[in-house]
Each structure stands twice: as C-alpha cells, then as structure tokens.
C-alpha cells in the first residue's frame, strides 16, 4: 500500500482532491468502462444462452434446453475431459519446469541475462505462431520423426500429433514451451527476494544446498506458486488459438477444448444459443478457479492488516 495521504493529516484538503483529479480519472474511467463492457457482454451472453438463437440473436425463451444439449454432446464431454487432463498436466509441468529453470539460473552463473531472455522469449511469440511451428515439428512426416529417421534411426516413432490418444500431450508440450518462462521469471523474482540472512543462517546451521532450498527457500515461494497456478489455469481454461493452430481439435475431435466448442457452435454451426450456453459453462469453470483465489487473497490481506 503506497497511500500518499497520511492518516495523521486527517481529512484531505479540497486542493488535494483537485490535485489528485487526474489520478482518479486515469484509474476510474478506464476501470468503469472495462467493467461495464465486461459485465454487459457477459449478461448479454447469458441472456442469449436461454434463447433459441441460431444464425442471429433472437428473443424467446427455451429454458435450459441449450445447456442440456451442450452437456449431452460428445464434443463438450471430450472437451471437458481434455480440459481436466490438459489443465492439470500443463499447470503442474510448467510449474516444475519454471521452478527448475529459476533454481538453475539462481546459481549466479555467467550469461544469466542472455539465458533468461531466451527462456522468456517464447512468451513474446503469439500462440498461433507457437501452434503452427510445433505442428510442423511434431508432424511425423516432416518434423522431428523424419529428422531422426533421416539420421539413420528408422524405427524411431514420435507421432503423437496424429495419434488420437496422445495428441492432447502435444498441446501440453507446446504450451509448456510457451509459458514456463513466465513461471521461471516469477519464481526467480521470488528466489531473489528471499532474505539473504535466512539463507546464511541455514548455512551456518550446516544445511547443504538441497536442504536449504527444500526446507528454507521454497516454503517462502508458495504465494508466488499460487499466483502462477491461477494465471496458468485461466490460460488453460480459455486456451483456443494454440489448439486451433496446432491440432484444430483433431485428429477427429480428440483434442477438443471448451473454447473450441464455443467457437465451433457460434461461428461454424450457426447455433448462437448453444454457443452462448457453452461460453457460460466456461465462465462457470473459470469462476470455480478464480473465486477461491479471490477468497484466499481476501483472507491473506485481512490477516496481514490484523498483524
């Protein structure tokens, strides 16, 4: 909290309010605009999800029919199962990869800046580019498998992209490549902010580097861990462009994800009502992640102020 008005001066003078007017304008106008934007369109989508809209939005009321249709469809069921698998695998693996990279970079090595940029760089690439490049690399006919075959190891197989059981893992691979740098950056910042005295105290007590990390440093990182988890989870739930470029939901419909189903229903099948229902279901999944996080933050802050 960097509150400028100190409580000791009591009520701020009028000139103070005028002086801070630009500040208020800068913060509140965009905030209100985007909140209104977000809320009005969310409400609009919720409304559409209860109407019989197909090609264009229409009024009318069909109750839960769009929801039952979406929930009963194979596409949605596959998408939901994939989301559970993709979400947990991606979040967990990117967390572990990011943490490992951060710990390795934290060893006061030479060229740290260069390495950090390299690991962070994929984040600057758009998901469509990531998806397209990986779709080439992972295609057994032209990518890694062909390279290894050409090198002489002809029995080598790496055809996950066209294997319907493994295709979802290609998305996990590409997503980790893209965003573990982000986890690394946050963890690195966390590692650097650990009080040097604590580490020294641990060393004096005779703890080795592994023990120091495991028992002393890592426990201080858990607020960052939760932030990383929440950010990555909301990415996983809304993942669209990466999948569209990499597998486009295929082979067949094996790598469907909720966002793809929404797009498909709305813009490929001209079923706006059902698409809106699927979008609202996605919103509910997101809320299931974000509300506990918000509650946790609230509790944390209260505890901090009370202490």
């Amino acid at each position, binding site marked *: 909290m960097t509150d400028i008005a100190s409580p000791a001066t009591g009520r701020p003078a009028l000139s103070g309010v005028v002086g801070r007017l630009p500040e208020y304008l800068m913060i509140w106008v965009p905030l209100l605009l985007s909140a209104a934007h977000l809320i009005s369109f969310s409400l609009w989508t919720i409304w559409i999800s209860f109407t019989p809209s*197909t*090609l*264009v939005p229409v009024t009318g009321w069909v109750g839960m029919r769009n929801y039952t*249709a979406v929930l*009963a*469809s*194979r*596409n949605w069921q596959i998408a939901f199962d994939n989301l559970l698998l993709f979400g947990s695998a991606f979040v967990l693996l990117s967390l572990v990869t990011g943490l490992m990279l951060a710990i390795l970079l934290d060893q006061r090595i030479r060229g740290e800046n260069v390495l950090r940029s390299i690991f962070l760089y994929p984040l600057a690439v758009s998901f469509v580019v990531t998806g397209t490049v990986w779709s080439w690399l992972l*295609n*057994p*006919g032209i990518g890694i498998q062909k390279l290894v075959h050409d090198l002489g190891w002809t029995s080598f197989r790496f*055809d996950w*992209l*066209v294997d*319907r059981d493994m295709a979802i893992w290609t998305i996990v691979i590409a997503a980790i490549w893209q965003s573990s740098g982000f986890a690394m950056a946050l963890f690195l910042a966390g590692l650097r902010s650990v009080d040097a005295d604590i580490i020294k105290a641990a060393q004096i007590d005779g703890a080795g580097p592994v023990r120091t990390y495991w028992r002393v440093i890592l426990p201080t990182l858990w607020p960052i861990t939760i932030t990383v988890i929440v950010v990555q989870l909301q990415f996983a739930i809304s993942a669209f462009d990466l999948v569209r470029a990499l*597998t*486009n939901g*295929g*082979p*067949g*419909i*094996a790598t469907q994800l909720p966002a793809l189903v929404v797009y*498909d229903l709305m*813009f*490929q*099948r*001209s*079923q706006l009502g059902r698409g809106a229902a699927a979008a609202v279901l996605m919103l509910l999944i997101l809320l299931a992640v974000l509300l506990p996080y918000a509650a946790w933050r609230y509790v944390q802050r209260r505890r901090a102020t009370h202490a």
Partner: protein
Amino acid sequence: MPITTTRRRLLAGSVAALALPSFARAQSAVKPRLTAISQWSAGSDGAAITALGKKFEEKGGVWQHSPVPGFTTEMMNKLRAQIIAGDPPACSQLKGPEIAAWSKIAPTVDLDAIVAAAGYEKVVAPDLAKLHKPGGKWIALPLQIYSTNMLFLSKRAMDKAKTDKIPVTWADFNDLAEKMKSGGITYPIANGGTRPDDGQKFEASLAGISPAAYRAAIMNLDKKALEGPEIKAAFVQVRRISEWMDPNVGAQPYATNLKRFIDGEMGMMIQGGWAQGVLRNAGFKFDDFIIVPGPSDNGKPVFLLNADAFIFWQRKEPDLQAGQTLMAQLVMDPAIQTMYSQITGSIPVRTDVDLSGEGWSDGQRRTAAALKDAVANNQAVLSLAHNMAQENGLTAAMIDVLTEYVKNKTIKPEQAVTRLAEAVEGAR
C-alpha cells in the same frame, strides 16, 4: 387561402414534371456497382471470380469484391456481421439449404423476372432449382456444379498396378487399391484429412452403395434408414479407405498430397471436380491423371451434387440495384458459365452448354454426362460434406462422427452407425 395553395401545388407539380425525365435519365445512366463477398481468394477459384469481375467491368460496372479466405463458414461470419449492421453486400456466395435459412434473416431480391427473361429455369436441374427458390421465388442463382465423388486415378500408379481397368463398383475400387499396394504403392489413397474430406469419404461410400438409402438417411433424416444396413456397409467401406491412407496426413488438406499422387506414390483420390482446377493450376497435365465418376455398385453413375451460388440481398441504392441485375444476367449467361467452369474444373449449371469443344477436359465431359445419367436414374443426390444436404448445425454434428471414425480405427462400424443416429437426434 385556397388559391395560394393551389398555385404552390401547381408550381411544385411543374417542377417535379420537369425534374422527372432527368431523374429517370440519371437512373438509367447510373453506373452499375456490385459489392460482393465470397470465400474465393486464391488459386483457380480466385482466378475464376477475378475473370468474372473483369467481364462485369467490361459491361461498364464497378466490381467491388471482398474475398474472405477459408471455409464457407468464415465468409458467413462476415455476412452475418454485415447483415446485423444493416449493410449486407449486394451479392454474396451462399449455397444449399443455407440459402433458405439466411433468407429468413434479411430481405432478398426477387429475381423471378430476370430469370424468366433469360429462360433459365428450363436449363437447371429441378432439384437444384428448388434450393435457390425457397419461398417459390428465385432469390439466388447457381453458378457452377461439382460432383464431390469423382474418382481421380494417377496414370503412373495405374502403371505400377499393371492395369488400365477403370473401377466401376466399390469391389473394383477395393481390388485396384490392393493391386496398387502389391505394385509397391504404400498408400493407394491420396485424400486429405480435413473435415469435409472425411465427410466425402463417407458420402461417396454410402451413395455408391445405395443412392436411395443416402436420400432417405442423409437428405431426409429418416430414423430407420439412418440405422439401416447400408449405413453400416458404408462405414465398413470408409474403414478400408482409411487404412489405405497415409496416417501422417493428420488434418492437412488433400492438396498436400497432389504431387505424390501425380508421381504415382499414391494412386487414387475421391475428390470434387475442383481438384482438376487445382491440379491444372499447379502445372500438372491432363495426361497425368484420369477422372471418372465415383464407384457405384449398381453400375450407373451416382452424382453427389455440390453447387456454388450467389444470393442477392436487397439494397436501396440504384447503382447497386443496377449492378445486381447485371450480375444476375452474367451468372446465367452460357458464355460466362463456360469461362468460369473452364477455370475451376466444374461443370456449368446450364444443361444446354456443349462441352465437346476446346477447353473442356474429358473429366468434365464425363462429369456432365454423369449428371445427365444420374438425374435420369434419380441418382443425383445432395452432398452432405459440402453443406448441400443439411443446414450447418446438423452437417457439423454428423461430420463430427464421420471424422472421428476415419481417424479412430478402434471405432467399430456398428458403433459408428449408432453415433451417427444419435448425433442427428441431438442436433435436431
């Protein structure tokens, strides 16, 4: 003051009388302008519509075409946005049952008078005409026809298989594929793996096994026919096709394999006539491949109709209205249809165009003959994979099942039959 009013009215009347002829003259002298959207941006499709635009300009019109590359649905998103904004294009690509569906959300132009003046109705296949006059009035005009189940044979692959017997039935087709395989061709089938491509494999199989079952199950969604033995037989055939394909094709378009097909590394392709345009546009020669009607178990050609069309949206601007009239006349013109089909590899909608002359391929002549035969034998049916048989929502639900079946070889034909019937039920 009655007198003043009268005088004023008189004055106004005479001004109007003076202005009227010049207004009429201005209207007839207005330069026809056409705003059009379509998905045709590149390759032979792009070349064809650009040539059509040139003709439009030669007739004194202003041609404003905005292509939206991708599948038809991508074009529809732009169309939807423009209609909701109250600014539809004067003319847009649209086809099949979508013409009826979309005509309910925005007013269209009544083309009856122009169609009658051109005597067009007499030269269009009746089933096709019906799709373009949903409320009994012509609101859209078909431009070109493809059959989605043409069989493309690679000459070099035929040499490797040491045969020149053209397959007629599915049994012949399967024989030839086996021969190609023993002739050293690892993947006798050169198809791609996109959704429409997977749908085509199924519709070609079913229509070739029984056009009557296709009509009942796919076009009329008859529940009994959907669970009938022909559907299962079609899935069995699709499985054989999928086993002769390169598994690495993933979701790539068929065009990826064209070179391997021509080189004889792959042997056959079940594709629409547009593949001829793409092959020609890529520089391959007519000597490299043969196009014949797709396999049909009763020996008579089966024609899976796919027709591209333009729908005309109501506009108030006189120049756009003049442009719509000019465009309609051009689309119905036999010379324009000839020009267009010769570029894209389709056949003209008009049944009175002579295809014996220069510029037509044997494949196109065979396609046109197949259409005539198929119509006579009631074996011309509407393509599912290319959105001619059902509206988008139903089509997509059915293609979900088909594409999953092609990609997932553990699904049994019986399971696929049940899933297809369930998908239809769920999407209705």
